[in-house]
């Protein structure tokens, strides 16, 4: 394998990891508060579609980005109303939210744009040109250099992080300490929703410049697995995202290499998922979930 192969691989790894990073950090925030949000796939979908639709209608990619954030917040709010306020089963709410949001996007897509796809927009360009793996757009730089460290610092070194952990581990103790459990969960879900939607928006606004049906293709579910893989810690989750992305980038390249011509393409496509499942099976056996995982909080 040539040097060019490896440079290409590294570059692609960061690009593929970016939406997973946004989504899994958003999901990490949710899960630290004790709420599982399976609406993540739909939230990414609405970020991708909503972001591109607004960008293409308004002609401003930044308006599209802001739109994606708002849609993400609303999606998080929806999940919060059902899981936190009403205490409905989180699996049901999450999957329902995903089905609702994906269908709603496809419905609006068909009403507004018929069978044709959305117009291509001028996507976010790389902020450094001709720099090999460093040629990435700002959303990649931002998530790796700013968001991940910020999340790590927030969870570890701020009162908010401490309170979020307490709410997710032992809401009764948090309540007795004077922390508003439900409000904290609302904040986590709304902010987390925005981050997930930005992960979706990255795909349309920065990677493709257009939208096609089924565009998220399971990345949300991967993000859910990554947070578990990362044991609800920022850096292991980042490592998981990079591992998955690297495997994915590798299989894309292997598929067009003559040596691997005989390997069924489907097997190669499945490779990153198999790696994540394998890694979860090996390291994920003695997991310690947040103490109040899946449990709505009610005062006794």
């Amino acid at each position, binding site marked *: 394998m040539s040097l060019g192969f490896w440079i290409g691989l590294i570059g692609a790894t960061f690009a593929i990891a970016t939406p997973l990073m946004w989504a899994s950090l958003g999901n990490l925030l949710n899960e630290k508060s004790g709420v599982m949000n399976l609406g993540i796939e739909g939230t990414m979908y609405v970020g991708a579609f909503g972001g591109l639709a607004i960008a293409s209608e308004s002609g401003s990619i930044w308006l599209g980005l802001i739109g994606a954030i708002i849609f993400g917040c609303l999606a998080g709010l929806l999940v919060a109303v059902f899981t936190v306020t009403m205490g409905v089963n989180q699996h049901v709410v999450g999957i329902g939210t995903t089905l609702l949001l994906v269908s709603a996007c496809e419905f609006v897509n068909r009403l507004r744009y018929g069978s044709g796809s959305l117009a291509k927009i001028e996507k976010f360009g790389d902020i450094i040109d001709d720099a090999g793996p460093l040629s990435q757009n700002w959303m990649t730089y931002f998530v790796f250099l700013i968001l991940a460290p910020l999340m790590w610092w927030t969870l570890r*070194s*701020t*009162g*908010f992080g*401490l*309170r979020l*952990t*307490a709410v997710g*581990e*032992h809401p*009764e*103790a*948090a*309540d*007795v*300490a*004077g*922390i*508003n459990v439900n409000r904290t969960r609302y904040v986590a879900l709304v902010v987390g929703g925005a981050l997930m939607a930005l992960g979706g928006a990255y795909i349309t606004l920065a990677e493709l410049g257009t939208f096609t049906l089924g565009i998220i293709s399971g990345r949300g579910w991967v993000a859910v697995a990554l947070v578990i893989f990362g044991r609800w810690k920022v850096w292991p989750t980042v490592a998981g995202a990079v591992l998955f992305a690297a495997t994915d980038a590798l299989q894309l390249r292997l598929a067009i290499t003559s040596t691997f011509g005989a390997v069924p393409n489907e097997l190669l496509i499945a490779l990153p998922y198999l790696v994540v499942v394998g890694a979860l099976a090996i390291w994920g056996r003695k997991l*310690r979930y947040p*103490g109040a995982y899946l449990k709505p909080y009610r*005062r006794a």
Partner: protein
Amino acid sequence: MTGSVPLIELRGITKAFGDLVANDAVDLRVDRGEVLALLGENGAGKSTLTRMIYGLSRPDSGVIKADGVAVSFSSPADAMAAGIGMVTQEFSLVGPMTVTENVMLSTCGLGPIDRAAASKKVAELASRLEMTIDPSAVVETLSVGEQQQVEILKALFNDCKLLILDEPTAVLVPQDVAGLFNTIRTLVTQGMGVIFISHKLHEVVEIADNVTVLRRGKTVATVPCEGLDPRQIAELMIGSPHAQEGQRQRDDNTNPGEPVLTMENLTVLGSGKPRLNGFTLTVYAGEIVGVAGVSGNGQTELVDVLSAARQPDTGSIVVGETDVTKLGVLARLDAGLGRLSEDRKSSIVPEMSVEMTLALEELDNYKHWGLLDKKAIRANANQMIQQFDIRARPTDAISALSGGNMQKVLLARSLQTKPTALVVAQPTRGLDVGACDYVYQQLEAVRDSDGGVLVVSEDLDELLQICDRIVVLLSGAIVGEVNAATTSPAELGLLMTGATGAALDQGSEVGV
């Protein structure tokens, strides 16, 4: 004292849950530098009352005055702001976080935190109260006594003036109780007020200045403790003279019968040191053997191993003549090994009815053409309810029962198979005097019908009261055996903390 403004004053507090009036026009007052004991049987309304003082619920009517100002707390945050702190029966600590993090949780705000500074403050506060506690220790690794200290530190960190302690001694060994009392005395000399809830009457007499007695939700008396003897308080509590103290051992010194439960060299490995380390003990027919020890010295593992919840790494368990080491729960029941586990709530299926709970371990007896014979189950339940004086109907959900009644159901379930060996863990935790008495009678009935009983308990008074002999567990092994009739709590306490002989270098979890 009457001239000054009380720290807290309750007037005519009433709180009802549906038909049940938990508090009925309750009055209470605590002054600066006063320890007020709040006494009452289970269900007398003590917890309801303190929860209202701490903002966890609101009274239906009545006035709460803090420092002379009428207040209405809608959350613990309001109560804390008014200088009220509470250490609840079930600790409100976040296990995976450190001592410092737990202590600073309510005051840290949302922004950046300074762990080092907070840690120093916690250490200072702790040393002022003569507590030896590492601020950077992860809370779930601490002993129960230490966790309680963390709770007290938490309250003091918030500058509380009134501290409510809800049954603080229920989980402590004698030495830790003495430490707690020293802490309380230090606090009141600094002008704080303390509300102290306890079932243990002699403690109330020892630590409190005044005692307010609740009975069925009403204040029946508020009297100074000076010169009061425990018997009088017990009378106030339950309304009639009551034999609280007194030994109940076999009066005759007959030879022990056949071995009914033989545990040989039981070992359970944990990460690091073994949790149970070569535990060897034989229980004979016609005796009650107690296992004492500071929690976390292998009691849980012992009970788990005996009740087939986990396999020992080495060793054997023999019931009568049958080796049950490798047998499952039902096979052990058949062999005559009954058990009553430590945690009532994990021994029940909450939605299940009383009658089904009673039949659950014996379903084979109720088969009728392969289906359950509901009539027989009902008949059995009715019989058990009568025989064990359970205050419930067969169709009631087991989770709706009070602690005492729930324990009666579980006890009935254990005893209906007529076990020759019975293992019980913390049999009276959280039960009131009457219910305790009842449980003791049942255990004695097993002994008197030539069964053997093993009681694992953290309540020394209880062990001393009902056991014939007591073994002390430390770091997973027996470090001593005493005759219950001749020993004293102090002697047991010393054994439990490893303060005597060779036990010292085994690394007890309690500093002595």
